[in-house]
């Protein structure tokens, strides 16, 4: 009996000691070191370059260790992953890189930490140095929901060599573009040469495919408060512009199957005269070993509808601090660094990622690497953002699914536009 009690006591003492030791050991390094875990997007968001920036930050802040997580090839896949993680209030990830369309939705769901207090300034002040479109998309309900990482917009890439060879000037309207394409296609006599490549698959890019011809007639999809202001006949006319170009053989028939990488790959293979794509594609056309169009690529603003004015779809990526992070203060500091002019310049020089500061566009080092950035600033500034809505998941799904169905000709443009209007009136009010 006595021996048993002694044994028990001994065991208990040993256990207590071990627990104390373990907690002590765990607590020691924690005091000196903060670990931050960052979700850094998919390959197109260049996690390799972000890693280099994180390394720079770690070198300057020895107390901070940054782990990086990547994933999701497209914006929709990332949104699905992040919705799952954030919905579970997971505290494992401290910082998220999110698409420009997401701050409103995530902030609305209470998933993002407002950064005003951490940065010590109001939203308006914090956003002043950035391009105006990023200020409006990152301020939600008057609070800073996220900080800009890099900009993006849809550009018109074209084959300089082919336009020069056939004496064609840069088209200013979609009709001019169609005529130019037809002329070049006929003269080249290559049945696989497409005039224009746009994205018609039901992916995030198809939201822009719907909005580009609509906006370029001078109309807005929504007002400042987020209420939908869809002008149906104008939207139908925009979709008919695409369908007319399909009928004319300028856009290929299975356009409703085309995703962003298809456009990039087909343009790189020399099968496309004009291609609409995001800014990141420039780097691929220029540097990818598989690119057969190196040195022959021009960039210009998107054409407009006849009588309208050019408008592009603005994209871009933001850094946001999770509302469930256990290291919000440290995370906010890192976000501030990642959103600084130095970081923006680094990304522009190393990866041709468009800067979020106007001054960086004209920086001598940047212009040396990407001469077209001089003109790109104007395009991004004049660009429009997709509707900022707390229900963006639904807004995007309705627009892209319907646009794709219209381009696949399973719905008439009128039916498609009616469907968008009736489904979104309830959501965007």
């Amino acid at each position, binding site marked *: 009996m006595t021996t048993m009690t002694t044994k028990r006591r001994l065991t208990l003492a040993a256990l207590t000691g071990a627990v104390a030791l373990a907690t002590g050991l765990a607590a020691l390094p924690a005091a000196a070191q903060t670990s931050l875990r960052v979700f850094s997007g998919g390959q197109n968001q260049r996690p390799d370059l972000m890693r280099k920036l994180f390394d720079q930050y770690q070198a300057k802040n020895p107390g901070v260790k940054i782990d990086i997580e990547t994933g999701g090839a497209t914006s*929709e896949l990332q*949104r*699905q992953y992040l*919705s*799952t993680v954030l*919905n579970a209030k997971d505290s494992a990830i401290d910082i998220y890189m999110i698409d420009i369309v997401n701050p409103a*939705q995530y902030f*609305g*769901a*209470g998933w993002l930490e407002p950064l005003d207090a951490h940065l010590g300034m109001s939203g308006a002040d914090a956003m002043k140095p950035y391009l105006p479109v990023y200020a409006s998309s990152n301020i939600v309900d008057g609070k800073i929901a996220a900080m800009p990482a890099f900009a993006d917009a849809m550009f018109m890439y074209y084959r300089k060599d082919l336009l020069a060879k056939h004496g064609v000037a840069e088209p200013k309207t979609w009709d001019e573009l169609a005529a130019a394409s037809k002329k070049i296609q006929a003269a080249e006599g290559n049945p696989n040469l497409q005039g224009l490549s746009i994205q018609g698959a*039901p992916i995030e890019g198809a939201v822009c495919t719907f909005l580009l011809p609509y906006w370029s007639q001078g109309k807005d999809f929504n007002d400042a408060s987020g209420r939908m202001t869809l002008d149906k006949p104008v939207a139908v006319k925009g979709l008919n512009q695409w369908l007319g170009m399909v009928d004319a053989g300028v856009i*290929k*028939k*299975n356009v*409703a*199957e085309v995703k962003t990488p298809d456009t990039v790959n087909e343009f790189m293979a020399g099968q496309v005269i004009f291609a609409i794509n995001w800014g990141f594609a420039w780097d691929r056309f220029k540097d990818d070993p598989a690119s057969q169009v190196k040195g022959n690529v021009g960039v210009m603003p998107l054409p407009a509808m006849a009588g309208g004015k050019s408008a592009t779809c603005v994209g871009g990526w933001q850094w946001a601090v999770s509302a469930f992070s256990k290291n919000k203060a440290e995370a906010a500091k890192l976000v501030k660094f990642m959103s600084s002019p130095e970081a923006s310049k680094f990304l522009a020089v190393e990866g041709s990622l468009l800067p979020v500061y106007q001054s960086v566009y004209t920086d001598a080092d940047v212009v040396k690497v990407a001469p077209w950035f001089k003109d790109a600033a104007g395009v991004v500034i004049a660009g429009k953002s997709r509707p900022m809505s*707390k*229900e963006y*998941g*639904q807004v*995007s*799904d309705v627009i892209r*699914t*319907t646009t*794709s*169905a219209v381009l*696949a*000709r*399973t*719905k008439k443009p009128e039916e498609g536009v009616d469907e968008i209007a009736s489904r979104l009136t309830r959501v965007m009010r």
Partner: protein
Amino acid sequence: MAAPTALDRLRDPSEKTLGVMLLAPAFLLLLLIVVYPIGKLIWNSFFDLRLSGGSGVKFAGFENYALVLKDPDFWNATKNTVLITLITVPGALVVGLGLATLANLPFRRKWPVRLALLLPWALPLAFAGLIFAWFFHTEYGVVNDVMRRLGAAEPTMWLLRPGWAFTAICMTIIWKTSSFMALILLAGLQMIPRSLYEAAEVDGANKWQQFWQITIPMLMPSIIVALIFRSITALQTFDIPYTMTKGGPGNSTETLAMLIHKTTIDYLDVGYGSTLAVCMFLLSLVVTGFYINRIGRNA
């Protein structure tokens, strides 16, 4: 002798107590991973639970269920799900039966046949969907290439026409699932005694008669088991249409599971998504009930 204490009873439990004690861990586990989630799902279906609005949780009573009944997307998805089940389950049964009969032939080497049966079954559903999406691609797909060589003038846009897209999805599902059918049926085939066929041969029955009079009746239990498993998974069809068409063009190939996923994950409408899931659960329950009823009568 003193009356047994609680501790004594624990040390030397009766047959019944021991049974309860041994079952308890499994029962608790089931409670945690089956009963709790289903209960929570049904509970959520009675609330207006939208994550994106920030408006909080409101009790909605049967409002979500009323909305479901009026929702054309729900009926469209239900129609697609039921059609996929009605087409692919018998389809896979017929193809699977053929494969199983083939594999049951007295080959000298059995493993290549067995391997060919196992491979599609071992392939993840999403991979099968992605592979077949490439097969059916308008420009790069092997299907259109074969059709062009056979003399088709215009490529068929398989995944961009509602009817063709549906056909392509059903063909993929049948390809993917018939090997599972075949595996179960092959096990059944091997249990049929050879003597039955020998006796039939003596009586002068031809192969066709042997198949209908011996093979099919003897195989019935295996067929029923295969049908139950396949029907229930067919009602949950998600991966293959999701990777092949994303439900497109429009929502012409959207299934119930895809609609639930979209409502919950993309739209962040957990309340309505739960209601849709409860409706899908009821549909599965009806189908399972039908089979259990049939088995009961057969037994």
